[in-house]
C-alpha cells in the first residue's frame, strides 16, 4: 500500500535542564532528559514508546504535544513547525493533537461536573453554543460506552476506569488527528485496563486517529502498537515493527526488557537474562554508550565511542556499536 503520509515528525529533539553544582566555578552540569530523538508517525499508525521510569518518555510526549518547548530540534505537526508561531496560534493548532494522562482521578477538575469538563474544549475553541456542547458531550459519553447519568456527577463519584473513558471522550471532543496516551492504563486494574485498551483500539479504527502510546509495560505497548521505540536515559536505543522487535531485537537493553517482563505462561520466558546494577544517574552520563555500565556484552570501545543510529534491516534501527555481531545464545 502506498507509503502513508507522515503527520507528526520530531527532528533531533532534545531537552536539557541545568542542575546547580556546588562551587561557583564549576560549569553547572546538565540533565539531558531527552537527547537528540528523531521520530515519525504516519497516518493511522500507532507508535509505541517503552522505557523505564526516568528515561524521558513523558518529557518526549509533552514535547510532541507542544506542551513543552524543546531546547533544540523541532516537532512538525502536519508539516507545521510551531517554533515560529505565537502562543495564540499554537493553541489554535493544538486541536489536532490531544493528550491522555496517567492518573484518571487527577486529570479531571474535582470542582467541576463531568458535563462541564466535557464541554470545556468546545467552549474554549468556541466551536458551538452551550446546548450543542451539552448534546455533543452526551454523544461523546455514548461513544466511549458510558451512559448519560454520569453527566451530572463529580469525578470523585466515578471509578478509575470510567474516569479514563471520560478523559478519552474529552480528548476526542475536538476530533484530533493524533492522540498521545502517556501511561494511560498504568493506573488501572486488569479488567479496567482491558476495557480501555479495547476502546482505544476500536476508536482508532472508527475515527482513523493515529496514536503515540507510551508505557513502561511492554505487554501493553506490544498489544497496542504497530511500531515500537525503546528509550533509555533520554535516547531511542531501538525502533522497529512490533513483531520484528519481539522476535529479533538487536539492542541488549531491549532484550533485557523483554526477558524481565513477567509473563503468565512460561513459553514467553525462555530468553531469560538479567542485568546487574542500577540505572546510572542521568545528570552526568558516563562517556560512550550510556548503557555500557550495565551491558553484559559491552566491549572496550562501547565505553569510548558514542554509538550512532544504524539501520540493520528495513525499518529496524538500533543504537549499538556491536549491532548484529552479538549472538544471543551464549
Amino acid at each position: 500500500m502506498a507509503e502513508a503520509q507522515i503527520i507528526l515528525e520530531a527532528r533531533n529533539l532534545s531537552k536539557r535542564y541545568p542542575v546547580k553544582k556546588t562551587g561557583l566555578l564549576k560549569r553547572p552540569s546538565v540533565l539531558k532528559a531527552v537527547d537528540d530523538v528523531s521520530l515519525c508517525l504516519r497516518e493511522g499508525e500507532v507508535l509505541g514508546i517503552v522505557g523505564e521510569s526516568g528515561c524521558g518518555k513523558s518529557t518526549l510526549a509533552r514535547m510532541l504535544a507542544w506542551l513543552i518547548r524543546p531546547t533544540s530540534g523541532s516537532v512538525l505537526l502536519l508539516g507545521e513547525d510551531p517554533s515560529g508561531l505565537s502562543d495564540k496560534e499554537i493553541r489554535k493548532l493544538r486541536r489536532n493533537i490531544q493528550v491522555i494522562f496517567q492518573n484518571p482521578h487527577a486529570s479531571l477538575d474535582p470542582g467541576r461536573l463531568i458535563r462541564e469538563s466535557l464541554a470545556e474544549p468546545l467552549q474554549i475553541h468556541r466551536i458551538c453554543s452551550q446546548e450543542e456542547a451539552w448534546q455533543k458531550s452526551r454523544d461523546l459519553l455514548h461513544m466511549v460506552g458510558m451512559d448519560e447519568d454520569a453527566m451530572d456527577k463529580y469525578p470523585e463519584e466515578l471509578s478509575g476506569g470510567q474516569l479514563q473513558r471520560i478523559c478519552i471522550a474529552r480528548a476526542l471532543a475536538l476530533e484530533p488527528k493524533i492522540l498521545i496516551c502517556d501511561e494511560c492504563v498504568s493506573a488501572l486494574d486488569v479488567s479496567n485496563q482491558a476495557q480501555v485498551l479495547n476502546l482505544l483500539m476500536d476508536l482508532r479504527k472508527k475515527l482513523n486517529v493515529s496514536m503515540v502510546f507510551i508505557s513502561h509495560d511492554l505487554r501493553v505497548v506490544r498489544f497496542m502498537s504497530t511500531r515500537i521505540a525503546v528509550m533509555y536515559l533520554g535516547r531511542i536505543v531501538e525502533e522497529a515493527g512490533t513483531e520484528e522487535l519481539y522476535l529479533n531485537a538487536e539492542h541488549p537493553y531491549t532484550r533485557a526488557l523483554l526477558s524481565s517482563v513477567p509473563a503468565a505462561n512460561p513459553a514467553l520466558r525462555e530468553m531469560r537474562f538479567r542485568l546487574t546494577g542500577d540505572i546510572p544517574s542521568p545528570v552526568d552520563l558516563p562517556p560512550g554508550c550510556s548503557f555500557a555500565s550495565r551491558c553484559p556484552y559491552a566491549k572496550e570501545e562501547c565505553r569510548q565511542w558514542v554509538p550512532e543510529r544504524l539501520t540493520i534491516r528495513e525499518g529496524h534501527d538500533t543504537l549499538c556499536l556491536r549491532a548484529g555481531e552479538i549472538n544471543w545464545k551464549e
Partner: protein
Amino acid sequence: MTPKRNKLANIVRAYFSRPLNTIALLCFILVVLLCVFAPLIVPENYNTIHVNRIFEKPSWQHIFGRDRLGRDYLGRVLFGGRLTLKVASFATVIGFLLGTAAGILCGYFGNTLDTVVMRFIETLEAVPFLLLVLVFEIMLGLGTGNYRYALGVAMIPRLTHFVRAEVMKLRSQEYIEASRSIGCSEMQIIFRHILNNIFPILILQLLRCFAEAVLTCTICGYLQIGFTPPMADWGTLVADGYHVLRVYPWISLLPSGSVILTVLSLNLIGNGLHDALGQKQ
C-alpha cells in the same frame, strides 16, 4: 453514596450539621448588627457628658451604666465596636486582595517573578508590625484610624505564603496540564481551574485573617496609637478602665468581653468551615 447536587450546597450542609457552628455564626451576626445599628439602640448620644452621674452602675435604662465622664457606656462600647470592625474589615480586604494576588502570581508563574516577590515579602516580614503602624501613622497623620493600612500590609506576608503553597500544589496536578493541552490559555486556567478550587480555602483564610485583624486593631487601640480621643475602639475602652479596675471592673471587662466574643465566634466559624471542607475533600 448520595448524589451530591453541587459542591457549595454540600459545604453549607456539612457546616450547619454541628450546632456549635450555627451558634458561632449567630453570635457574630448579632455583634455586627448591634454595632451597625448602634445609633438606633443607644438611648442618648454617647458623647454627652453628665458630670454628676459618673460611674453609675449598670441599670435598666443604661444597661452598661456610665463611664468616668458619665457618658452612656453602652453607646461607647457599640460605637467602639463599629470603629474596630470597620478598620479590621477594611484592613482584611486590602491584605486579602494583595496577599492572594501575590500568592497566585508567585505560585503559578514561579522562578524569576517568584524569587523577586518572595524576597520583597521577606523584607516586609522583617519590619515589625508596631513600626509599620507608627510609620503609617506619621505618614497619613493621626486621622480616623489610618493604621488600617498598616494592618492590611502586615497581613500580606502570611497570606502570600499560604496562597502560594496552595497554588503550587494545584499547579502540579495533571488536570492543569490537561486543560493546557486542550488549548486553555494561562489566564483561563487560573480563573477556571485554580481559583474555583482554592476558593473555599481562601474564605477560610479570610476568616482567620479577619479574626487576627480585630485582635491587633484593639491592641493598637489599647496602646492609643493610631488615633486620638474622643475616638475610641474596644481597646481604648479597656485601657480607660485599667486605672479603675479594682473599683469598677466592668468598665474594662465589658469591652474585653465583646472582643473575645467576636474573635471566638470568628475562630469557631473558621474551625467549623475547616471541618466541613475536610469532610468533602
